[in-house]
């Protein structure tokens, strides 16, 4: 019985990976945290409004996170799998700032600065050296970066559950409907960020440069573009989008180690939409958010994570390049 008695090998591995089962999220709020119903409105209508707001908020957050992954993938062809960890890391920075007594906007500004610095650091220290290697190298590199960030979250921030309170009143009244403010802030903030980043990508000079690098690296270098700088910028903006998604998620729900599964949901959205399409990721984020929230509402919040997987598998069978992905992207065998 000695083998059983001594400290088990497997338990030690268990200690290493602190990614327990995803905490129920999303639709759980739709059920338990419903706002008190305004007297002048029928209960059903208030329920539907709150549920719709929940969907819009999580849609926006997934779209923002997915946007960060897609932007980086388009320019550097590296699939960033550490999205969830990066989001939570930046979320912890914001939560720490708020806990230190800073007002919410300043905490957000600090977190934004941290996200930009993190993006540039990740690019210059690691990603730059593996550009042009086979794609799996960059992918595994981001797995390593995610592991480091996960460990840092435990060591620096304790790895517990924290919130990022805005300091606003708990409910907002729009017309005759009272809605939970965190969801309103998350929805408005996320969609504002998505719109700004997507428009900047389309309209500004920098966006044009990034699209040029995404199209053809060699040609853009010959036209005098500083490719390294453009790539660094795209990583900066991508990580910024991911970090903003993390902050908004923390504002709406909680920042926790296990909450980094929002990265998985966003990745699924990217794959459904097509890895290199902004339009696709925004649409697919809606699909993922709807699936998750309806699963939580009608089935069980524990299956929130696997419900979008079913849709992803269907999409992979029918259109493996995603809804809006470039078809030549995929080298089918």
């Amino acid at each position, binding site marked *: 019985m*000695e083998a059983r008695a001594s400290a088990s090998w497997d338990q030690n591995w*268990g200690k290493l*990976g602190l990614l327990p089962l*995803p905490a129920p999220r999303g639709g759980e709020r739709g059920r338990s945290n419903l706002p008190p119903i305004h007297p002048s409105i029928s209960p059903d209508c208030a329920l539907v409004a709150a549920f719709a707001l929940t969907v819009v908020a999580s849609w926006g957050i997934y779209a923002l996170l997915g946007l960060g992954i897609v932007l980086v993938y388009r320019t550097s062809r590296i699939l960033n*799998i550490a999205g969830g960890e990066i989001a939570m890391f930046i979320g912890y920075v914001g939560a720490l700032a708020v806990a230190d007594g800073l007002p919410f906007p300043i905490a957000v500004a600090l977190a934004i600065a941290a996200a930009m610095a993190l993006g540039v650091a990740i690019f210059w220290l690691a990603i730059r050296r593996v550009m042009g290697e086979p794609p799996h190298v960059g992918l595994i590199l981001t797995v390593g970066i995610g592991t480091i960030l996960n460990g840092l979250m435990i060591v620096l921030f304790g790895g517990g559950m924290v919130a990022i309170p805005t300091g606003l009143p708990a409910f907002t009244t729009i017309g005759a409907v009272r809605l939970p403010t965190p969801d309103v802030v998350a929805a408005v903030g996320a969609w504002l960020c998505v719109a700004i980043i997507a428009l900047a990508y389309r309209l500004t000079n920098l966006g044009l440069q990034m699209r040029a690098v995404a199209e053809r690296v060699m040609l853009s270098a010959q036209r005098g573009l500083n490719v390294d700088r453009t790539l660094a910028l795209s990583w900066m903006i991508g990580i910024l989008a991911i970090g903003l998604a993390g902050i908004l998620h923390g504002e709406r729900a909680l920042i926790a180690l296990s909450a980094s599964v929002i990265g998985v949901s966003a990745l699924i959205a990217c794959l459904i939409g097509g890895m290199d399409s902004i339009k696709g990721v925004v649409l697919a984020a809606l699909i993922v958010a709807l699936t998750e929230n309806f699963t939580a509402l009608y089935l069980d919040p524990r299956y929130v*994570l696997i419900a979008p997987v079913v849709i992803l598998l269907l999409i992979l069978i029918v259109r493996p390049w995603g809804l809006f992905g470039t078809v030549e992207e995929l080298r089918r*065998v």
Partner: protein
Amino acid sequence: MITPRAPRIPASLPISAGRTFALRRGRAQWSSVFVGILALLALPVVLPPFWVHLVNGCLIAVIGAVALNLLTGNARLVSLGQAAFLGIGAFAAGLVQRAYNVPFPMALGCAALAGGLVGYVVAQLSLRLRALYVAVTTLVLHFAVVTLFSFVQAVFLDSSGILLPLPSLGVLELRTPTQWYYLLLAITALVVLGALNLLRSFIGRRWIAVGEHDVAAEALGVPVKQAKLSAFTATSAVTALAGALSAYYVGTVSFESYTFGLAIAYLAMIIVGGIGSVLGSVLGAMFITLLPYVLDQLFLVADLKFRPNILAGIHQIVFGTLIVAFLLFEPRGLAEIWRRMRLSASNWPFQYRSASRVAR
């Protein structure tokens, strides 16, 4: 003007195919193999039981790492679902054991079968996809499988999972780490030798060809679909076997053991050890398995006390840093370092060998 002299072609160039592909050549190499076998057999006699226990952990990890390295290192299908496949093996063995009380070897067989089946299905899905998509499919598989296990455990089983009985091989019950050691050593030796032979055979060479460039491989007549299917199925079966072994070794099956961190630990093993190298898998598995204990001992010596939570965080940071550092600075891992050390030792006091001696 100095005209470079043409290198002399050594008379003893290996000509026969058997000699070219032999794993060991000459009396010196064979005697080192014998010494190694003797040392491995004598290990539990020399080491204290706790160390044997650690070595057992290494051996189980070696089985899983060799399989993952064949899949990710040679066939270049990046799998983030290693923990899921270990869990599939453990749950298959545990459920079969619980339902039908089958003997230990049969439970292992069932585990391998279940792993192979799931691997086959995943391969069918990921055949349509490129490397990146395979990685994401397996990542998603991980979360789906763990959620499924948590459901099974919550609805059909006790909260602590399945308790496994002491495994027995015929008349012998496996009780002590030493008894386990010999069983695990035998299985590990089989898996390692199997992997080495596989890479020399047409199957392994097909996997490598597909991993290097699937379109080129197809143009050369390699059945790409078949190669990818067989790679995924075979390695998943071996991984599930490792999962079942570790479950029996620990004595319980519970979904909480199969975290994403475990999958990353296995990925770290093959990257630190050396992508695509069997020796690398062995070295990396030992390195990563022993690393937490070594770190704990170091902290003990340095008189640093951390809460277990923080300690887990430090382990993760070290793991992640190792993955990143090896990828950036030594992509071929410990196996390459070992090769360089051996080469410089055998060439000493010279920098390199003359061309005429290389072939021997």
